């Protein structure tokens, strides 16, 4: 078990190094860097000392050093918790991402929770009442949900909120709590703002999972052990939930870790961009456009870490709920 964990963590570390290195290469690919963009801006403004200023910045950010050296410096500092400095904001990356990282994780977890809590019961109802009107309705809705990308749904909801209901749905806090210290009221306010973006980001995943859950459960309900459980005189509800659902859910845990959670992490960032939420999504897109490489690189690494952790948690969870699985 410990062995397995160590191996998985080692693997994750290698992946993170590979991913961050590749990201750096990709960001480095286009000709020019952040400073060439900056020089042009300054020149356009007629700033005479542009060249000189930029030269100073170049040294400060280490952009005069060769690529490899820059990457190694950044990576070594990363381990010490120093993620480099953002060119655009002229502040340390850790400062910019600090609070945002927390909200990103909270949003992703809330989305996962909603996905799970809605998809499983809907899939179960759909399977247990196969071909009934309830099943038909759930199937149609999940079908539409499957083809409803979160950011477009967010746009539509934003439209209705603004035009029809004249509501404020953007941001994670009401103005009065924005800069207030943490309190029960602030947490409630956060939850009040969080559920809608989380639900929006969850829709696509719910659509897919409902269909998978329905299929799995239909397969499982035909298994001999379900009939055997019924023959023991158990209630239908006990047979369904304790025996059939318990088995049908296992593959979903894997799918949740390997497919749904990653798409939630990314999907919720897109939703966050539309709804202007303080997560790392909007900052990341902006940093890519500006070639703000330490910021962008750090964001990618955080995304990757979230995915790898999600994957690992799913595997551990599966091993915990399914005695047939041995971690080796």
């Amino acid at each position: 078990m410990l062995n397995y964990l160590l191996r998985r963590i080692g693997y994750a570390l290698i992946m993170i190094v590979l991913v961050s290195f590749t990201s750096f290469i990709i960001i480095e690919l286009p000709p020019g860097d952040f400073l060439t963009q900056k020089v042009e801006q300054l020149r356009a403004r007629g700033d005479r000392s542009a060249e000189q200023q930029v030269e100073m910045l170049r040294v400060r950010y280490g952009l005069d050093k060769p690529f490899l050296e820059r990457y190694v410096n950044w990576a070594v500092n990363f381990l010490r918790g120093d993620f480099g400095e953002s060119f655009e904001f002229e502040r340390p990356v850790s400062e910019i991402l600090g609070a945002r990282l927390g909200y990103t994780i909270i949003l992703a977890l809330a989305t996962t929770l909603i996905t799970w809590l809605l998809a499983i019961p809907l899939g179960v109802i759909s399977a247990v009442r196969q071909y009934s009107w309830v099943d038909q309705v759930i199937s149609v809705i999940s079908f539409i949900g499957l083809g409803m990308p979160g950011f477009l749904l967010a746009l539509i909801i934003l439209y209705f909120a603004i035009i029809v209901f004249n509501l404020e749905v953007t941001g994670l806090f009401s103005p009065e709590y924005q800069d207030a210290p943490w309190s029960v009221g602030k947490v409630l306010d956060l939850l009040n703002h969080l559920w809608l973006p989380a639900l929006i980001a969850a829709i696509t995943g719910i659509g897919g999972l409902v269909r998978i859950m329905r299929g799995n459960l239909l397969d499982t309900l035909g298994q001999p052990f379900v009939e055997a459980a019924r023959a023991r005189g158990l209630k239908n509800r006990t047979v369904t939930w304790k025996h059939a659902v318990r088995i049908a859910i296992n593959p979903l845990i894997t799918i949740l870790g390997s497919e749904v959670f990653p798409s939630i992490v990314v999907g919720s960032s897109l939703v966050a961009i539309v709804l202007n939420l303080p997560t790392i999504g909007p900052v990341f897109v902006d940093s890519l456009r500006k070639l703000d490489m330490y910021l962008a690189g750090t964001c990618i690494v955080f995304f990757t870490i979230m995915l790898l952790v999600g994957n690992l948690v799913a595997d551990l969870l599966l091993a915990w709920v399914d005695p047939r699985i041995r971690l080796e």
Partner: protein
Amino acid sequence: MAVAAAPLTQAKKKEIGQSYWDLVWYRFKKNRLGVLGAILLIALYGSFVALPEVISPYALENRSNFVEAPPTAIRLIDEKGQLRAPFIYGLERKIDPVRRLRTWELDTDRKYPVRLFVQGDEYKLFGLIPMNIHLFGIEADQSEQRIFLLGSDALGRDYFTRIMYGGRLSLMIGLLGQFLTLVLGTTLGVISGYYGGAVDMFVQRFTEFLSAFPNIPLFMALSAAIPVFWPPTAVYFMLTIILAFLGWGGLARQVRGLILSLREREYALAAKSFGASDWRIMFRHLLPGTMSHVIVIATLSIPGMILAETALSWLGLGLRPPLTSWGTLLQDAATIRAIRFTPWLLWVVPPILLTILTYNMLGDGLRDALDPYSGR
């Protein structure tokens, strides 16, 4: 004994005497949702890819002074309550003194009948035949009055026209990208499944690596890396290649798995014992066996590609103006200011959703039809 041999039902006879693809077609036709999806898709591609010039009343970049005009209502009843042929009222520019906004008001004195097949901007049908006939429009001087079915944008361009043209790039990127993915994915999948060894190692490790990457951030980083000064067409093809590059891994894996089981089948062994070349066995004997799977996977992943383009362009990382796609249109529509003041720009969303839905419907129908052994 004759009594025992019961006559086969009509449906059964049909199922017995037919080839695999006939059977697939027969089963597909029975799936109403799938057929509807196919018909809608043909209609979508027909109007957005083949004929946007004809259907839209103006040329793509035709600007006007009618800036941010709301959608024009086509009317049948005039201000006196009389029924008449379809017409629109003229638009008049007003300044709202309180909100300091430019608004458009109807001028009920000017009426313009809406006609079918009117002459207008010049274009080349299918890029070849010069024409100037448009499906609908009004017969008026363009600077005096225009028809904006879905309003106009900040440069006074007809938004309906822009959505029509935008569909061409967005819909085509899905097909092109998927085509590249298919070629790359099936070829590498077949080779890696058949030969194993170094190619297999490479495909396996590479797909593993890609799947560890958070995929949309990778998309974003890659497309952000397309140089700004590249010509639009180059950007378009680069984006297509990026989409395909990230998509082939999954497909290759699936094909590899299928080939691994197919190559042990009798017919593959028989072909080998007849002395068929590896190449022939791979692409004549094994590849067709994976086709049904591949078609389903491909159909179901096209909407993902279209969405990826839309999302990237929307974020300013994919296609850039002057290219017009649904994604670049979304860029203008998806701000709080735009939603508040020019909400009609969101009309670009329904065609995107419709496209995704129809592809899913078709893909689902195909999956059911192509897998005769699926119980459900």
